[in-house]
């Protein structure tokens, strides 16, 4: 799902709508202009990092891509930051569309062959295990510390061994959001549209990603 018209110079593609909505709202909250967001289309199996190659191949055919200077690929490190980055590199090559492959996270390759530069943006950050929820949790925890303590207790009591860092963070955030949001079914995708959460985007836990977005033009 990419914008019908690519009019801005920078495009962030994420694994799914939760990533792109979070980054889009973060850019708005921090007054960072020039960004649009998108993520790989269905089928569902193509969601996550596996869809990046397909989306990059498709984007190469978009006549509006000439307006785009750089594409940032926001991906979850999960439990293996090196492996996740390697997978992103493979996806860029697999697109068979002439993009230059960045050598390291946060490093921009050159714009070549009529396609823009690509930068890999690991979530929560370089060499840190986790995912989007891991990035968000500190902000929610600071605002609702007691609810966080209770959520930790609930997860520890019910699923003590079967959740790693990522799934654990997803479970805790889901529990927290369910407890503090007027809509208990609110998803990460839609939480930034709700008053309860909007101010969280000013939290320092988002500073590094915000700085990356602000500094990307100078990196190219």
């Amino acid at each position: 799902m990419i914008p019908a018209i690519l009019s801005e110079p920078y495009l962030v593609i994420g694994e799914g709508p939760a990533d792109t909505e979070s980054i889009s709202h973060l850019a708005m909250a921090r007054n960072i202009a020039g960004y649009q967001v998108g993520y790989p289309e269905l089928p569902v199996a193509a969601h996550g990092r596996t869809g990046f190659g397909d989306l990059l191949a498709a984007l190469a055919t978009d006549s509006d891509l000439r307006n785009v200077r750089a594409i940032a690929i926001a991906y979850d490190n999960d439990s293996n930051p090196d492996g996740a980055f390697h997978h992103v590199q493979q996806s860029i090559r697999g697109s068979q569309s002439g993009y230059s492959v960045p050598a390291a996270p946060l490093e921009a390759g050159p714009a070549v062959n009529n396609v823009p530069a690509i930068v890999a943006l690991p979530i929560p950050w370089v060499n840190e295990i986790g995912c989007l929820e891991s990035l968000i949790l500190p902000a929610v925890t600071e605002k609702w510390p007691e609810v966080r303590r209770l959520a930790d207790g609930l997860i520890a009591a019910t699923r003590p061994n079967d959740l790693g860092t990522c799934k654990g963070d997803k479970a805790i955030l889901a529990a927290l959001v369910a407890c503090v949001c007027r809509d208990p079914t609110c998803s990460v995708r839609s939480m930034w549209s709700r008053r309860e959460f909007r101010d969280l985007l000013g939290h320092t836990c988002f500073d590094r990603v915000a700085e990356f977005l602000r500094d990307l033009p100078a990196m190219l």
Partner: protein
Amino acid sequence: MQSVVEVHPNCKGDDYLMIQSLTVENFRCFEHVELSDLKRINVVVGQNASGKTALLESIFFAGGGHSQLALRMRAWRLLPDVQITTANPETFEEVWRDLFFNFDQSRTIAISLRGTPQNTRTFRIFYDAKTEHVVPVGQKLEEVATLTPLSFEYSDSEGHRSLTKAEINERGLVLPGPTPFFMNVSMYVAGIKANPKEAAERFSALSKKNQERHLVETLTRIFPFIDDLSVQTSAGESMVFASVSTLPEKVPVSLISEGVYRLLSVLVGIASTKNGAVMIDELENGFYHEKLPEIWKLLLEFAEEYKTQLFVSTHSLEALKHAGPTIKGNESKFALLRTERTNGNSSVRYFSGHQFLKAIEQKVDVR
């Protein structure tokens, strides 16, 4: 339409393509375009006036080996008929003006088609100042003007060359006849119905070789109300007629529907342009959208069977979307060509079948 059956000796492999690459210089909106790695089906997209039809015309004109095709293309473009009854150099140049990039007739049009050695041709159109001569303009002997004939030069990969000239004399326009440098090409133009007589002749030629059954079975499968096809005479002209179960007598296919007739014409064209290339301008014209997935499938099926290469232009996002199921698994047989116009000069961008398919799946508008 133009079609001449010519079977080349080097076209036996499954991957045979008449045109693997091409270069177009100074033709219509193209100053210089190079395309390589062309495929069995090359889908041409682009905004209005970006050069989609001109790209198809360049292949048709260069492949057809006949200067008179320029006049046919004028008619397709709805330009007035050429009526030169006296030797007027200005009117003569007007006839060819639109063929040249920026209408600049000091340039040389050059179109090169490269495939097997037999299918490698260069076609050049130019005014050769050395051939300038005096022609009478009016009735009086003293009314004369200088005229430079327009040269049409074909050459092949082995250095064979054919040079013909279009000019005017006291009776009007004089066009050279066909050259031996023809290739097997056909073109179907948007908004202009294929000639029923030509469709009948092609159908009849297939029928004589007992090769019409596949076509008949295909048409009756797509349009179940048709039982059979045959060539009949109507008012002295041969036409393809259909047997329709609900009608008491056979009817010309062109009477049934535009879509049925267009599909028949295109499929007959592909079948009778064996080992050649067929250009189809604005594929979507006349077809109900639900038929489009099947039509893409048929185009590939017929193109593969007859080793015919297709250049298909479309404006329709729906037509492109419906190509997806046919491209899937056949990515190596498709290419997407997008014509783009910047500052009065058109260019063509090439995308692989893989990128084309992913664009459809990811709902990217490639046009």
